[in-house]
């Protein structure tokens, strides 16, 4: 017990866990929703990582959840890629949400090619965000997407049905969109505790 260890060095070496930090660090990828930002450990979307958005059905506000982010990215001349969306993104609504359509790109691909295309887009690092709708994707393919997002330092969003919530996933953030009542539930978030209560999230029309 002869040596005296300064507290500062211990803290700097991160060998002491200090519990929940009170100050929320400013994220470089805010979601655009203050309540959601406050609930997430990084204060926004996990940067260069895969985020999963779990929805029970289409038309529950799953796009409006992302629109502020996409509007911010396209305003900064970053490209947003939709890989094999199930429907046509109706430009009038996307435009009204503030998205610069000239930076929006749609890739039409079959189920197998869609994963390849999403991985290529993520890995290239030339896109700001990549949205994909994987169907019956397994753990390994999700991990590939996560690694590709890290490599290209790109935001990746995967929309999946809510039934997948029971299966584990390598995504850095898993967010369930619920409708009755309208709220968001964080199922997993890397780097912090899960928020105890659901986050109210009501979509406009």
């Amino acid at each position: 017990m002869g040596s005296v260890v300064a507290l500062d060095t211990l803290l700097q070496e991160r060998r002491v866990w200090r519990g929940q930090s009170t100050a929320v660090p400013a994220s470089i990828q805010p979601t655009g929703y203050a309540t959601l930002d406050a609930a997430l450990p990084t204060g926004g979307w996990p940067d260069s990582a895969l985020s999963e958005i779990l929805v029970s059905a289409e038309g529950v506000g799953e796009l409006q959840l992302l629109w502020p982010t996409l509007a911010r990215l396209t305003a900064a001349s970053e490209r947003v890629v939709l890989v094999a969306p199930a429907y046509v993104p109706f430009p009038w609504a996307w435009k009204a949400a503030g998205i610069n359509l000239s930076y929006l790109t749609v890739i039409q691909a079959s189920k197998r090619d869609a994963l390849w295309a999403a991985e290529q887009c993520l890995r290239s690092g030339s896109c700001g965000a990549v949205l994909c709708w994987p169907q019956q994707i397994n753990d390994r393919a999700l991990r590939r997407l996560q690694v590709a997002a890290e490599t290209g330092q790109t935001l990746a969003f995967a929309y999946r049905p809510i039934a997948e919530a029971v299966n584990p996933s390598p995504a850095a953030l898993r967010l369930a969109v619920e409708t009755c009542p309208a709220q968001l539930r964080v199922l997993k978030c890397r780097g912090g505790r899960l928020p105890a209560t659901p986050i109210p999230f009501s979509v406009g029309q």
Partner: protein
Amino acid sequence: MRWACILLPQLALDAVLRDRDDPEAPLALIAGTPQRRVLKTMNPAARALGLQPGQSLTAAQAMTRDFVMAEYDPAQIEYWHRFLAAWAYRFSSHVSLDYPRALLIEVESSFNLFGPWELFERRLRDELTALGFRHRIVLAPNPAAARALATIHDGLAVTHREALDKVLGQMPIQHCGLSREIATAFSRMGLRRLQQVLALPRDTIAKRFPKEVLRHLDALVGESAVVLDCYAPPDEFDVRIELNFDVESHQALLFPLRRLTSDLAAFLAGRDSGVQRFTLFLEHREGPDSQIPVGLLSAERDAAMLFELARGRLENVQIPGPTQALRLLARDLPAFVPAYRELFNERPQQSLPWEQLRERLRARLGDGAVHGVHAFADHRPECGWQINAAKAATGLADLPPRPGWLLSKPVPLQEPALRIVAGPERIESGWWDGGDVRRDYYLVQTHRGQLAWAYCPVGEAGPLLLHGWFA
């Protein structure tokens, strides 16, 4: 004026070797009539087996059978000579093919662009080696001297008249570009070096030898100028590689394909143009050739990129039979405009620019697979979007909320308990182009909380037709 002579000592052999996977394997080129086949030339590995130029094929095969044969084709040599001229054309506007198996390039006017001769020469050598051609390079003040010096020197750079006289004086008389009879006559007279010939009185040479001799000697020392034809590059690229065996998998086609695309890139760089559309032909024993068109969105000339795109298209193609030859034809060669780049990279993590990524995606998924979505000023939802931004709309005044997802084809909405949130909104348009619609749109909420955009045609009963989701 400074002239560089690039002598290609084994042009015929290199042209064949560069298409082979293994250039170290013994190879001999055969020429002559079918009755008497003669070995024309061979690579060092074949020489080590004891083969000699001029040997008859039967004699060679009596010694060993472990060598590959290929036809010695003068047309091919001519073709590769011109190919290299196209390559050299980007270093100088004055490239001459007048000397067989050699390129004469006027280089002094290019020093400003390519730097001093040491750097310039290294660059020429690097590129020739990458293209797979052995070479000797000599710099001299006039083309005749450059060509003569290249027969025995490599890497020599003579810039001044005095130095040239000294180097030329030491040249053996056989290697001075004089015809064989004249050279023999000189050496029988005891004149073995060029300086001895130059020391002779001019009138005696004029008396004893044809007038070409004196003219050639004047050209060598630079007393009289040699007029050389200028090479003009061809307007299209058309190269064919014949494969030694029937190829059934695309893997084996990648090596010749890489050669073709890098040749195309070298050709394009020489012309300072790009390629926007080219066609790959796979030739079969029977039936027509398989054609693989490769289209790009903008003119490109990067060898790696062209290869990757061609490969992407090749991998997706099903061909009827084994391939015997591969041909690349590029007719449309627009001017190459380098892509605009920021001085400081805005996305430091970017490993592949978007333009290249887009071409890669198109190569695998199809030409129409990657597109934008743009608004079009039409009240009918199905006409309100388009892929091209050509006629992008300025905006319809104050549209009510529109859904983020649009179904490309409306489907009946089979929901038991629908709650109408807003509506109806009447959309009535298109009477002028045959796509007449009269619909009442409602914003409805299903029992699961989904917000849908559905309509019923005016004056018709029945279930609502779902046309979009307020996602």
